[in-house]
Every structure is written in structure tokens, then in C-alpha cells.
């Protein structure tokens, strides 16, 4: 369940992206020297021409910072997102479902690895990003702060949460930053597969016994609104959106993507034989889209602030896994130092930021 979600765009960061007016990509400094001005022109032209920015290309600091933040949060979401589903691995009701769920959680760890690698091309490191996650200085998608209370939640997550994530992520396959775009192509394929499996799980429940059907409906009731929140705040309250769209990191607004998602889900819910928990959903002939009810933004902001049902539990488990695993990582490092063939022991860890600068 990869959820790069727009919901993080409301967070306060030290990035300078806020300051950059739309359409003036990268031009955040008051005084830019001529060389920089030239680089900015080249960069803006490449973005305008839909060319891909690659790790060795010059890029504005704010562009780099925005990407690091978004990709890190995306990676963190994969890792934290393993927890609500892993919660059901040991209780999966059939061996087939158990295998599917294990494979999915494994995929998520793989997506996390992939995204951390992509983020590292920008001059950060996985360790540094994980430290920030553990210290609460970087976020993950708010959706994973909701609990998985029944088996049907596994299906609802696949259908709705992965569905929302895919709606968000497919446009990212055309994102201006090459490594991120390529990661997304690969990840979206697997995500689509997960989503179909989630849908199929819910379908089996919906057509199963009365108790199974009720379990499926209850799960959809609980996951529908949080899934809509994954697209982030309404367009008029989304501070980073304009700049991200100017940089072609983002291709569509939060509200556009949310609308697209609702329009996709309504017929799917009908096919599932399940109700979406929103009495205001109806087809709007004029707009050619579905109207839907108001989102509880107060709840959204509470979850973002750390007051959701599982925020504490999720980060505590992540920290504990990391801390309790420290001696294992230390052992691997000590063994490598003893047995690696003739590498100088004084070699310090690579510093990608400098490498990027040097090779630029």
C-alpha cells in the first residue's frame, strides 16, 4: 500500500518551497549570480519541455528539498504502511489469502527500499531519512494511523487506500525528476495488482455469508473518508501545490484527483454490492461528475498532528524495530570490516551530497 499522498503538503517544513512563486521555478534567492541565473533558465526550460531532471543535473535547492521531503515521506509510508496489514498476517483466514498478504507486505518493504534509493540520488541517505522519521521530523501518510480491526480491513485497504494511492501516483510516473518517475512506473504496476486483490477480497466477503458481508460493509464505512483525505487539503488550503505543479512534480490538484477517485469508486462499490458511507453522493449531470459530502477536516488535522488512533503505536513499533535491530546492524558492519577484501579501513561513508555537487 504505497501512499504518496498529498496530505503531507500541509506540514510545516524548513524547505524554501513556500517562498517560491509559481512559474518562477527555483528563483528563490534574492541575489542570484549570473551563472545561477543561467542554470535556472536551463532548468526551467527542461521542465517546460517535459524533459527529465537527473541526479547530476543542476537543480534549485528548493526543488531538491521538496523532492527529498516528498520521496522520503513516500518511502516512510511504505514502511509504516506495512504495520496495519502485517497485523493480519498471522490471522489470515485461508492459506491463499495469507500468501497474498505476505507477498504484499514484502512488496511494500521493497517499495520502501526502492524509494529510499531514489531519494539518495538527491544527496541524502536512508539512515538519515529513517532517523528523521523516528524523531518525528518527517511524516508518513496519515491513513496508516487508522487501525485494522477486522480481516475485511485488509480488503478495504487494498481497494480504497491503494486505489487512492494509485490515483495519486500514476501522474507521478511523469514527474519531472527522473529517478522518482522511474520508481513510480515500477511501483504502480505492483500497486495495481494489490488493489485488484483487495477488491477481490471484498467481493468474496460481500458475496459470502451475512456476517462476512457485514464485515466488508463495516470496513468500507471506516476506510472511505480517511481514503478521501489521502488527497490532502482542498486546493485553496494546499500551500505546496502550486509550486509542485509548476515544477511538474505534481500534475493535478488535490481536488481534481479526489474527484477522479470518487468517480472511479462509485461504480466499483455498486459492483461490490457495498454502500459508500456518504448519503450526499449523487451523479451531477451538469458537471459530468459525482457530487459528494463534506470531509471532516478537523479529524484530518488531528491525525496529522499526531492525535489519530494509531500514531503513537505506529511510530513506537518502528522505533523499537530499529533500536532492537541495532546490534544486528552493528554485527553486520563489524563482520564486513573484518572480512572485506583490502578496503582501506579509514574510508568514511560516502557523502552523496558532495558527490552530486562535484559531478554536476
Amino acid at each position, binding site marked *: 500500500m504505497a501512499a504518496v499522498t498529498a496530505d503531507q503538503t500541509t506540514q510545516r517544513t524548513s524547505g524554501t518551497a513556500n517562498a517560491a512563486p509559481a512559474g518562477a521555478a527555483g528563483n528563490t534567492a534574492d541575489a542570484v549570480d549570473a551563472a545561477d541565473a543561467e542554470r535556472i533558465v536551463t532548468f526551467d526550460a527542461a521542465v517546460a519541455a517535459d524533459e527529465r531532471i537527473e541526479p547530476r543535473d543542476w537543480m534549485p535547492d528548493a526543488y531538491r528539498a521538496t523532492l527529498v521531503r516528498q520521496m522520503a515521506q513516500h518511502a516512510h509510508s511504505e514502511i509504516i504502511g506495512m504495520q496495519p496489514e502485517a497485523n493480519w498476517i*498471522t490471522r489470515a483466514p485461508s492459506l491463499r489469502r495469507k*500468501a497474498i498478504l*505476505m507477498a504484499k507486505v514484502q512488496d511494500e518493504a521493497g517499495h520502501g527500499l526502492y524509494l529510499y534509493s531514489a531519494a539518495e540520488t538527491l544527496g541524502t541517505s536512508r539512515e538519515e531519512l529513517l532517523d528523521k522519521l523516528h524523531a518525528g521530523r518527517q511524516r508518513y501518510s496519515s491513513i496508516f494511523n487508522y487501525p485494522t480491526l477486522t480481516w475485511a480491513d485488509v480488503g478495504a485497504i487494498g481497494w480504497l487506500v491503494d486505489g487512492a494511492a494509485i490515483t495519486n501516483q500514476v501522474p507521478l510516473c511523469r514527474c519531472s525528476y527522473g529517478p522518482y518517475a522511474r520508481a513510480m512506473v515500477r511501483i504502480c504496476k505492483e500497486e495495481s495488482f494489490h488493489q485488484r486483490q483487495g477488491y477481490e477480497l471484498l467481493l468474496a466477503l460481500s458475496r459470502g455469508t451475512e456476517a462476512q458481508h457485514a464485515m466488508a460493509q463495516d470496513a468500507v464505512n471506516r476506510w472511505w473518508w480517511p481514503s478521501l483525505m489521502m488527497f490532502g487539503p482542498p486546493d485553496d488550503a494546499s500551500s505546496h501545490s502550486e509550486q509542485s505543479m509548476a515544477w511538474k512534480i505534481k500534475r493535478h490538484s488535490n481536488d481534481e484527483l479526489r474527484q477522479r477517485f470518487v468517480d472511479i469508486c462509485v461504480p466499483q462499490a455498486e459492483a461490490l454490492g457495498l454502500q459508500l458511507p456518504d448519503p450526499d453522493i449523487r451523479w451531477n449531470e451538469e458537471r459530468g461528475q459525482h457530487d459528494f459530502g463534506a470531509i471532516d477536516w478537523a479529524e484530518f488535522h488531528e491525525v496529522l498532528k499526531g492525535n489519530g488512533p494509531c500514531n503513537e503505536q505506529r511510530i513506537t*513499533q518502528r522505533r523499537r524495530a530499529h533500536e532492537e535491530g541495532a546490534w544486528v546492524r552493528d554485527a553486520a558492519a563489524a563482520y564486513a570490516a573484518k572480512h572485506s577484501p583490502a578496503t582501506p579501513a579509514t574510508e568514511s561513508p560516502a557523502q552523496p551530497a558532495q558527490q552530486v555537487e562535484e559531478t554536476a
Partner: protein
Amino acid sequence: MSAALALGDDALVLSHRLGEWAGHAPVLEEEVALANIALDLLGQARVLLSLAGDEDELAYLREERAFRNLQLVEQPNGDFAHTIARQLYFSVYQHLLYERLAAGDGEFAGLAAKAVKEVAYHRDHAEQWVLRLGDGTEESHSRMQSGLDALWRFTGELFQPIEDLDSAATNATGSSGSSGNTGIDWQELQGSWLHAVTDVVERATLTLPTGPQSGGWAAGAGRQGLHTEPFGRMLAEMQHLHRSHPGASW
């Protein structure tokens, strides 16, 4: 006792234990690796249990006394070193056994031929970690030794002959199994296992445990449906949802 049940239960139960690691592993690569091994084992379990009957009925509706897995595989995960010790003891055993089954023309030859590739990877993973933990830091060395020590007493059971494990893996003269109808030479298997495990343990600067390898209670008990206490609790968790909805399909 059906051999498919014995081998299938080993894979099913160990897969379940490894599944408990999801989200708790010391490093992301191990999230992937442990889940990968768990999935391989679950795949093997499904094939084997299907030979013995309906996979879900067998997994979810048998009680503790009807499971035929080794006591080794049902042992709780403990720390990472305990999990790796369990993986070492079992994967070397499973690899040697499946190699022999794959080389024969018995009922399990085809299945073993496919599984042996997966199991070779599991074995390599376990061996590599035993080396790293044993020859890593002082702490990892002591944890790895303690894992090997704690699980040692469950290893005698591995060489209890499994009835009906028909295979022409070894020729008739090589068979010294007590049940008399198996093609596996269990003494030879035990010797090979001991040799392989000793080699890894010594290279890892660790010491092979010296305690009884097959204490009176443990030897062969799992294969006869006599399990350790944590196993019942594991089954309760594994089976509760399935049992709560009799006759439902998922």
C-alpha cells in the same frame, strides 16, 4: 503418519513464525528476506497439505495434537539470533532431505526438486547470518551462541524417520532407518547435517552445543503430535478467524 503432513506442517508452522517478523525486522532488507522465506515455505506447505487433503481444513481445523511438525519449527522467534539459529538447524536439514528426495523417484521427488532451489537460498541466508552474528561484535557473538544453545535440544527430532517417505534417493543397502520402508538413510542424513552445521558454527567462531541433542521428551515428539506449550497459542491465533465462520469461504 502421512509424510506429506509431516513435511507440510514443518513448512506451514515455520512460515507462520517468520510471518510474525513482518514490520519488526532489524533492517529493511531483512523484512524482504524473511517474508520471502516465509512465502516460499507457505507455498511448499500448500502443495504438501493438498497432497494430504484440503489445505485449509488441515491448517485451520486440526487441533494441536494432530499437527505433525517438528518442535523446532514451532519455537517462538526470540531475538534475531534465535530466529537465525532455528533457520540454520532447519534449513540445513530441509536442504539435505530435499536433495535426497529430489534425487529419487518417490512421491515427493518432483516437489522436492522445485523446493530444493528455494531451500538452498534459505540455507545460504541462515549461514551468512550465523557468520555475521558469530563473527560480528561481542554482543552478537553471545546472542548467536545463546540461540544455538537454546534450540539444540530440538535437533535430535529432525532425524526421527518419517514413515511413508518413499524415495529411491538412496539405494536399499544405504537404508538404516528404523521404520524399514523409507529410502532415506536417516543416520547418513544426520551425519551430513552435523558436518555442515559444525562447519558453519566453527567458521563463525562459535561452539557447537554439547547438551543432549535428543532429550527423551523432545525426540520425535512433534512428529507424534506432542508439542511444546507455545504452539497451542500460535494455533489459537492462526485459526481463530477461520473457526469463527464455519463453512465460509474467503
